[in-house]
C-alpha cells in the first residue's frame, strides 16, 4: 500500500477518493511543468496511460489521476494531447482529416509515440 499523503504533489487539480468512481478527466504533466487536463476516455488510447491509470492498480497515478512525463517537453505533450482528442473525435467516423505534425517535432513525437505505445492505435480500440 502506498502512502499517498506523503507524496509532494501540491498542485493536484483533481483529487479523488479511492472509493469514488474514476474521474472523467485526467491530468498529464510535462517535464517542464505544463499540465494538460484530458478526457480520460481519450487518453485511454495509449495502453501505457491506460495501465498507469487503471483504478484496480495501486499506482500513485491511478489514485490521483495524474501522470507526470519527465522526458516530454510541453510542446511535445501538447501534440500528444492533441492527437488523443483527434483520435477520440474521429475514431468512429468514415472520413478522417489529416492531423498536421510539424516536421521539427517529428522525431520527438516518434519517440513519444513509441513510448506511449501508440503504434497500434488502429487495433487497440476495444
Amino acid at each position, binding site marked *: 500500500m502506498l502512502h499517498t499523503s506523503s507524496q509532494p504533489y501540491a498542485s493536484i487539480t483533481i483529487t479523488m477518493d479511492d472509493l469514488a468512481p474514476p474521474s472523467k478527466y485526467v491530468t498529464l504533466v510535462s517535464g517542464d511543468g505544463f499540465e494538460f487536463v484530458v478526457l480520460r476516455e481519450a487518453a485511454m488510447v495509449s495502453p501505457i496511460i491506460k495501465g498507469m491509470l487503471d483504478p484496480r492498480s495501486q499506482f500513485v497515478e491511478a489514485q490521483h489521476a495524474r501522470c507526470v512525463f519527465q522526458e516530454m517537453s510541453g510542446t511535445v505533450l501538447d501534440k500528444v494531447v492533441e492527437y488523443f482528442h483527434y483520435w477520440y473525435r474521429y475514431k468512429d*467516423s468514415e472520413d478522417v482529416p489529416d492531423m498536421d505534425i510539424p516536421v521539427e517535432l*517529428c522525431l520527438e513525437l*516518434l*519517440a*513519444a509515440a513509441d513510448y506511449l505505445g*501508440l503504434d497500434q492505435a*488502429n*487495433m487497440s480500440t476495444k
Partner: protein
Amino acid sequence: MSEEPPSSPRLPAFTFQSRKRSHVSPQSLRFNSSDPAVFSSDDDPGLDNYVEGRRKKRYVGSWFQQHLDSVDSSFDNGAGRVSTVPTKRSLKRDLDSGVFLGSDTTDGEDFIEGLEAPALPRLPQIAPRTVPRLSQPEIVARQKIQECIDRGNEMVDLWGVGLEELSDDIVNRLGQVTSIPIVAKDVAFAPPPPNLQVFLALNKLSRLPGSLCDITNLTVLSLRSNELTELPPAISKLVNLTELNLSHNKLRCLPADVLDLVRPRGKLRDLSITFNPLWRPQRPELCKTDDATEERGRKSQNSSGLHTHHDKGDYMVHWLGRSPLQVSNSNGRVLSEFRLPSMEETPELSESRVSVAVYFDEDSGVPVSLPPQASPGLRKGEAMPSSVPSLTELALRSCSRSSYLRDLDSLIPEGLTHLQKLLQRTSLQKDMGGVTCSTCRKTIVVPLLEWIEWRELLKCSFTLEDAEDLPRARLFTDEELVVPLLYRACSWRCGPKDVKRERCLRRKDE
C-alpha cells in the same frame, strides 16, 4: 696557435642561410653597434679575429635552392655528404619566382623562427565530401542521353549498357530529352505530344528510383531482362505510358496502381510480364490458361457491366481471387498469421504460391470465401475498424516530409533500433517515390493491411460489335495474363469490402 693538433674540419650545419644577411648570433648582434674591443695582449691583434669576417662560401645555388659546395675534399668521406652534383639548369618555369621582397624596416625578421604553425587548425574543418564517382556504364549512358538531347531524338536506347542503378543524374537527363518542334509558316506552334521512349533492356537494375516516375511524357518503357524485384507504386504517375515491358525480371507481383495505367482507364496497351517468378495462387484453377479463356470471355461479356464497350487493344480485367490479409502494426511488425512471402526470397517458380482466402466462383458468379481454417485471420486481440492513423504513423509521415530524412536515423538514441529501422524504411520508400493507400490514395509509410489480388488481363483483339457479326471468331487473343497485384491499405476501412462484412458479422456474434 702553434701546438694544437690539427682538427678535422667541422661539418657544416644544414641550415640554409640566406645570402642577404650572414648569420649573426644574437649575442654579437646586441653589441655590434660599436667597435669591437681590441686588446693589446692578444696574439694577433687583427680585427679579423674579433669580427666574424666574410665566411667562405660553402653553398651554391640561389637562396631558395641551395646545396653544398663540395670543393672541400674532406666532405668526400662520411655520410653527411649531400648530393653535390649541381643539377643542370633547364629552361623550365619554377613555381617559386624567386623574387624576394624584403622590407628594410623589419630588422627582427630573423627571430621569428620560434613560431610554429599549430598542428591542428583551430576552426572545425569541413570534411571533404566523397563525391560519388561515375561508373563506366553511367558514363556511356550519359553520353547516349546527351546525344539524344542534342539531336532531339526521343528514342533513348540504353540496351545492355550494364547499368546497375539509375542515378538521379541520369533520370534528370532523361527528363530533358524532347523532340525539336517543327516550326513552319502558317502553322500554329504547339508543344509536341509526349513521345519519350526509353529502352533499358538487358541491364542490371535491381530497383527503379521514384524520380523516374516523374517523367510523365514517357510513353514506352522497356525494362526487359533486369533484376527488378519490385515495381514502385509511383509508376501510376506515368499516365502516358502505352508500352511497359517487364519480362525477364525477378518480380513477385505488381503494385495495384498499375491497373490505373491499363486501357481503357489508362493508355497502356502492351503490358508484358512474362518470365517473372510471380506469386501464384494455391488453387491452381485460378490460373488456368488456354481453353476456358474463350468461354469465360463470352460469359463476362454478358455479365460484366463495368466496361460495356471495349475497343480493340483494350484490356478486360477479371477478378480471380484474393489472398488473406497481412496485418501489421505501425512498427511494421506483422500481427496476422498470414504473411506474404518476402520479396527477396527466390524460391523455385513452382514454390512461390500464396494461399487464397476468397476466389471467384465461375458457376455462381460471386466471390466465395473459404472457411476460416483455410484462411487464417487475425490472432487474438481482434481489431475494430477505425480510420484514424496511429501517432507513430503520423510522425513518420511528417518525417518523410523532412529534407533531412536520410540523416534522421542517426539522431535516434541507442536502444531504439526499431525506430531507426522504421526511419530507414521511410527513407527507402521515399526514394521509391512513396507508397500510397490503394483505396484512398493517401501517402502512407507502413500499410496496415497488405494483400494480393489475382486479376486476369485479357486483351481484346476485336471490338464487341465485330464479334457479334462473326460468331465463330475468337473473341480474344491468347494473350492472357494472370497478374498478382499487391494492395496496400492505410486502415481497415480501406481494406477489401468482403472482409469488412465478414468482420462485422463476427463482431455481432460476439
